[in-house]
């Protein structure tokens, strides 16, 4: 059984079919990348898994459990964490507080003990901070720990968002365009982190990314989407050289011209 299974999922916005009968299986321990031109439905797939959207048909299962039965705030409790394409951090809070929100699914104390700050609340807080500090160490966020998000540069915010997702200690991490807007060096770092997240932490990664260089280096399998449906599925090299993928990016007639260049960057 796959860790995450989308079976025949269809989502329509009025007359527009955003996701069309899509079947997607992510195995435990792999890095799976979704690629495709703008509007292909990649982020929509993420929002379906996060339960922000409800599909018209199809099933979504995580570790055998039916995700469609859950509300969106219940999804993280299964061990699914995500980042957003446009960075959705808590701007008027510090980096540390943002990461601590990532620990929300592990909270135990109820309201009254929190109001009274009972010893149990304090020891729970300490445990959260130990976990968060590990993430800060892992992502080299020490210089920014007590800074407000509102004053941080874009590249750092991107890392903080990854950190917030990691702080929840997920089994499946959804990363939406981790390298968009990053410098070459920052993209390089992101690549090492994604590698380490899979190897050291054993977290399964599903990512959306346009940078085929990054996709080729970190992912085991790639699915190319266009108009909400699967175009190609396979290793990064296979997908990049797939004629349908080349057509989707470069238009018809491009195949003969690029046949020789197949295998290089699309």
């Amino acid at each position, binding site marked *: 059984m796959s860790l995450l299974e989308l079976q025949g999922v269809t989502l329509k916005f009025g007359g527009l079919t955003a996701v069309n009968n899509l079947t997607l299986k992510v195995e435990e321990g792999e890095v799976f990348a979704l690629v495709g031109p703008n509007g292909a439905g990649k982020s929509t797939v993420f*929002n379906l898994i*996060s339960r*922000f*959207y409800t599909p018209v048909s199809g099933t979504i299962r995580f570790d055998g459990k039916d995700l469609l039965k859950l*509300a*969106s*705030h*219940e*999804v*993280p*409790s299964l061990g699914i*964490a*995500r980042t*957003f394409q*446009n960075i*959705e*951090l*808590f*701007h*008027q*809070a510090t980096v*540390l*507080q943002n990461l*601590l*929100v*990532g*620990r*929300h*699914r592990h*909270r135990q*104390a109820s*309201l009254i003990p*929190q*109001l*009274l*700050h009972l010893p149990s*609340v*304090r020891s729970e*807080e*300490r445990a*959260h*901070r*130990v976990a968060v*500090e590990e993430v800060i160490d892992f992502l080299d966020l020490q210089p920014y720990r007590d800074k407000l998000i*509102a*004053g941080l540069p874009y590249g750092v915010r991107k890392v903080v968002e990854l950190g*917030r997702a990691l702080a*929840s200690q997920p089994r499946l991490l959804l990363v939406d365009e981790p390298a968009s807007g990053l410098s070459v060096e920052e993209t390089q770092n992101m690549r090492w982190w994604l590698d380490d997240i899979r190897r050291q932490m054993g977290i399964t990664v599903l990512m959306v990314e346009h940078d085929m260089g990054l996709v080729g280096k970190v992912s085991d399998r790639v699915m190319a989407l266009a108009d909400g449906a699967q175009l190609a599925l396979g290793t990064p090299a296979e997908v990049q050289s797939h004629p349908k993928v080349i057509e989707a990016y470069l238009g018809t007639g491009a195949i003969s011209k690029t046949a020789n260049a197949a295998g290089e960057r699309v």
Partner: protein
Amino acid sequence: MRFHFKTSYDQDINLFIDARKAVSYGLLVAAAFALPFVIDDFYLGEATNVLIWAIAGLGLMLLTGQTGQASLGHSAFMALGCYATVLMIEAGVPFLLALPLAGIITGVVGALIAIPALKLHGVYLAIATLALAILADDIIVLLGPWTGGVNGKIAPDIVIFGQALNRWSNPVEWYYVVLVVTIIVTLFYRNLLRAPMGRAFAAVRDSEISAQAMGVDVARTKTIAFGLSCAITGVGGAFMGMFAGAFNNETFNFLLSIQLLMMIVVGGLGFIHGAFLGAVVIAFLPQLLSIVSDTIGGGVAIPGLEAAVFGGILILFLLFEPMGLYGRWLKIKVFLELFPFARKDMFKRQKSYLKTERLR
């Protein structure tokens, strides 16, 4: 500039980050307790008034400053808190039990009202809660047999451990009662901020969508915030009515909610200090104005002067200092600490888009 070399997680969890902070707030509390020995009864009454406004303001601050939900209906909850306390005292419930009970009742009613109301966002929520405040006025009149309607009620003495404390003849004891409640409320507020619930409030304020993606139940969090906010404001309202000596539906007019909202904006949204600074402004402004009009205008009362001046102050703050008095204080502090290296744009607010609604 002070740097904190952190050696344990407790430093971040503690109420005060270092001994210096603890000592300065300790001195502040000590000064507050010593106040009756320094000033006369009139000014002690004013100080009590400031604390009462601060309690009510902390309630609204929790909702608006921390959770990002506007409410113009808090005068209704102040009324509920006040009538509940007084009716319970009249029914023979001791004050020390009646006050927290009234807070809990107000909180539960507030949470129940919040369930439908908090489906609304921004200005629509403000309008809906404003309607609630206007409605409360009529409900008080309609419930005349219990509330006394337009004739109002005379506030009973507070009885603590068999000691009757009259608002007029025992100002010092009254001040201490309000001070202790203020400290308790502030502690609760502070405890919340350093616990998961407080962070969930901030998460809902800054980005509902990613709060949800992190496992925060947005509807539930907002409801809890509204309930807690109403409970605190209800306690503030109870003191306000009893401090006035007598109260009726007019005491808890909807203008009171607007005043309360203006107060926390002028004080500094999102800061505990902001509620207190705003309370000082709102409690002393009428006095200041009467002193000024006495000296300049020769004692001629100008109707609506207070509201106009307060509105003007609010507009000036929104234009020039949206972070309020406390925000201004923070800026001055940074300027002095970094002198001469502080830059003008250090506090510049970055453009933030309302991204939360995008997926709806």
